[in-house]
């Protein structure tokens, strides 16, 4: 007789928390004595992305020295406290081959996928965070979580490829609810038992998944892919449920904060973004520490950043195009101010990650944070010298404190380096002229 899942689950609803003959679930119940103890368990390496639109100002951010003893430039000053845990990359480029340079897009897609996009607004493959999540997220509650500090549900640079981005949480309260609302299991609570309701839901999903064959009948190629994505999503939720049937593994020295108030204004006004970013960063950091997820994506703007400082009738994006280059300074002063705000927001995320103690270091030491943007010089939509910053120690696999002065090599080298540091068995990344087999080995420990 075939032992299918539904047969096995049959006797369990409202019944005893009995053993289950499903391989990946051992018994974690107190009655069995040695449950999966939290201490001594190796802490997983986490991955974060931070997206900020409209780049930086070359004269003000690129250090003159390369290597580990670079001078802190004015636009990198907000990150000074994390200098030893941070690497900055200048002088990289995006070889387009036959693809156009889509304004406020090609830079994003190239940094996130290692592929210069063939269509505007679309990624030509899964983004780097998803590629990494595919490998590292097994066992965490959510495969990845995304948040948008401007409240715009379209601001997500985490994608399965094509037009489908993974929707971000758009307010601190929404993020909190997702992470610590219903369904959250506090790892430090003493009385943990697997929730039988979850097993029931698995049976429900089983029936849904069984319809797959019929659902796929007579579909054209692209509809088949979309239907396939639906069933992949079902599968992921099934895996999530399986994780929830296991005792949470990590104890973290963090207190789950109370829910944020509902009336926080979330929009493109910079003062509001400056309030929302630390809160979303804190929630994300705690989520990583408690293994709600191992991949956290935070975005502060769209690529053509709509951020504005109240009183500035142009706003960030329009300023990049319309503010004249100061003849004496040689750059756009107001744009430069906005650039610095982006770095200050990035520092807020790093601060939250570095503020959580974990074993022999901090959460930041056990993470990588991949910060990227859309343009190197937004005024003319240039991407040469696209700024990229990578923070964190990747649990000892990534060295810090470097200014890597790229020699016009492809920006995908950073993505490759990052994935190697995350422990992925990957030899090359990117396609066509962006394909690279050369990580920045000086950074890899």
């Amino acid at each position: 007789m075939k032992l299918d899942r539904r047969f096995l689950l049959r006797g369990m609803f409202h019944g005893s928390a009995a053993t289950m003959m499903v391989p990946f679930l051992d018994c974690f119940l107190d009655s069995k004595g040695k449950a999966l103890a939290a201490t001594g368990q190796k802490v997983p390496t986490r991955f974060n992305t931070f997206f900020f639109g409209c780049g930086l100002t070359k004269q003000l951010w690129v250090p003159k020295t390369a290597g580990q003893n670079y001078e802190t430039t004015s636009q990198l000053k907000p990150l000074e406290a994390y200098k030893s845990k941070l690497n900055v990359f200048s002088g990289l480029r995006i070889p387009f081959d036959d693809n156009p340079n889509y304004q406020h897009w090609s830079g994003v897609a190239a940094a996130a996928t290692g592929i210069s996009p063939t269509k505007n607004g679309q990624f030509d493959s899964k983004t780097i965070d998803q590629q990494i999540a595919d490998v590292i997220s097994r066992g965490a509650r959510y495969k990845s979580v995304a948040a948008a500090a401007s409240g715009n549900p379209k601001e997500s640079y985490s994608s399965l490829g094509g037009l489908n981005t993974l929707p971000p949480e758009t307010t601190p309260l929404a993020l909190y609810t997702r992470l610590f609302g219903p369904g959250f299991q506090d790892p430090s609570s003493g009385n943990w038992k697997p929730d039988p309701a979850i097993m029931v839901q698995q049976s429900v999903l089983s029936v849904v998944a069984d319809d797959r064959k019929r659902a796929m009948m007579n579909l054209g190629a692209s509809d088949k892919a979309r239907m396939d994505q639906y069933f992949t999503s079902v599968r992921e939720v099934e895996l999530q449920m399986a994780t929830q049937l296991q005792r949470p593994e990590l104890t973290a020295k963090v207190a789950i904060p109370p829910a944020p108030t509902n009336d926080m204004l979330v929009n493109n006004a910079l003062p509001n973004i400056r309030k929302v970013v630390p809160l979303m960063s804190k929630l994300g950091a705690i989520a990583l520490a408690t293994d709600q997820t191992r991949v956290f994506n935070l975005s502060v703007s769209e690529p053509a950043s709509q951020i504005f400082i109240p009183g500035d009738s142009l706003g960030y994006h329009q300023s990049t195009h319309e503010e004249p280059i100061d003849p004496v300074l040689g750059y756009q002063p107001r744009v430069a101010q906005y650039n610095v705000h982006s770095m200050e927001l990035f520092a807020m995320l790093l601060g939250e990650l570095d503020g959580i103690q974990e074993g022999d270091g901090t959460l930041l030491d056990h993470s990588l944070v991949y910060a990227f943007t859309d343009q190197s010089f937004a005024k003319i939509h240039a991407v040469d010298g696209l700024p990229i910053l990578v923070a964190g120690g990747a649990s000892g696999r990534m060295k810090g404190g470097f200014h890597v002065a790229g020699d016009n090599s492809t920006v995908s080298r950073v993505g490759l380096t990052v994935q190697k540091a995350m422990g992925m068995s990957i030899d090359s990344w990117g396609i066509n002229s962006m394909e690279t087999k050369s990580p920045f080995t000086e950074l890899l420990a």
Partner: protein
Amino acid sequence: MRAKIIILLASVVACGAVAATALEASGSQVVGLRRLTENEYRNSIADIFGKQIKVQGTFEPGIRIGGLTAASTAVLSITPGGFESYSKMADNIATQVVSEGHRKQLISCQPKSAKAPDDACATQVLSHYGFQLFRRPLTAEELRSRVALVRTMTKSSGDFYAGLRYGMATLLQSPEFLFRKEMAIPAAGGTLALDTYSRATRLSYLMWDTTPDAELLASAQSGELATPAGLEKQVDRLMASPRLEVGMRAFFTDMFMLDTFNVISKDSLFYPKWAGPMAAAAQEETLRSALDLALTKNGDMRELMVTRKTLINRSLASIYGVPFSFNGEWAPHEFSPESGRSGLLTQISMLAMFSHPGRSSPTKRGVAMNEILLCEPTPTPPNNVDFSEVNDETGPLKTVRERLMAHAADKTCSSCHNAVDPIGLSLEGFDTIGGRRERENGEMIDVSATLAGKSFHGAEGLGKFLYNSPKFPSCVARKLYSYANGLNSEEVENAAFKGGLDAFQKSGYRLRALIKGLVTDPKFFTASMEAHAKAE
């Protein structure tokens, strides 16, 4: 007892066999797979289970393609986070449906014992709701697996209704509910045409933004909907209903891009009057005035470009600078001729959505009006364009007009800007939140413009220009057709909506005539395989 069940199941299976045949028939093809929008989902649940069933959850956003988010329903799928949300909602809705408070109304049979399985009753309930949720009868297998789940869950919980809840939940998170499958079967002359259930679905979501009702489903089931007379009967019924307003509200919201408000902000330092409720009020004004013209008055849609009549509430009145002494919330208002207002073009919604937080933008407004009203999207500008001379407010060029006119001098810029800026410049008499103004940086604002060789003045001039342009009615027809079919409006052939456009013109540009003309066109339900392939 078993015999009774077998007979009952056999009759249900026979029902199910109808859809199974359609699917397995050789040559049948799924030509459309459209994810339900949030409103479509909510309305469908409300119509199937009643308004008292609460729907709480987050929905993934759509993407604007060819000016319409409806087109993205044919392209997007469901992400894991999205499915998680649907799954929770499904369980939540199912729990409410079987709860003690609702089961008398919503569950049509009673189990022999509330503590034991009753396959006959489970079958009855699941076929009934399955039919409504999937918009076609369930197949034998779809029903069997769910009845079996109900039986299992009932046994282990000792509660029939608990078991039933899980069976219902599987229907509510199935892709057959979450996506509208448009199935085409071989028709006369070697073409493919939508099967009757798909026709019912397309009509219902277009007209009422909801799932086909019992009468529409019955006309699909009997095949009546496939006949011209049967189709006309249903179309007339759907259009005569006040529910047509719900459908057209969804269409106008999409066509006029009213969801843009979700992502724009206004600078409260410059515009303290612009508060939270303003955006919702502005959207509502546009919808009410458009629906009033289109459906209540059955008027000439070109009036949208020139009318001084609208409906406003107190908050909007303060930005419009008009008195408001009405007891209800929404009052009809007619602007004076001196106000310079002209239809949709000068409504707060259009003026505010396509401007910056702190200043107006003739270019943004021009681009938006071209795309929304004339179906003329603007190509992206060249990468290395130098705006600095053009936009230095402290230089000698004081008004934005003077600064933009610099584009006209440069050939690379003028090709697009000459088609875009005049629209926005004629609207410069209104600031970024839609308030009237005469001066900019101390200079009088010049609102004259020339477009396609015609000169005009201010918003009224622009309104008359658009009123007389054949592109506007053609664009409305194109957009409605694309909306109905989930297509990229930029890739639709003129021939596809010609029937509707002709009816629109003949009727004096009445929206009702356009709707009916489109859906009764013999080509409307032929599977647009080329268009579908293009969307891939």
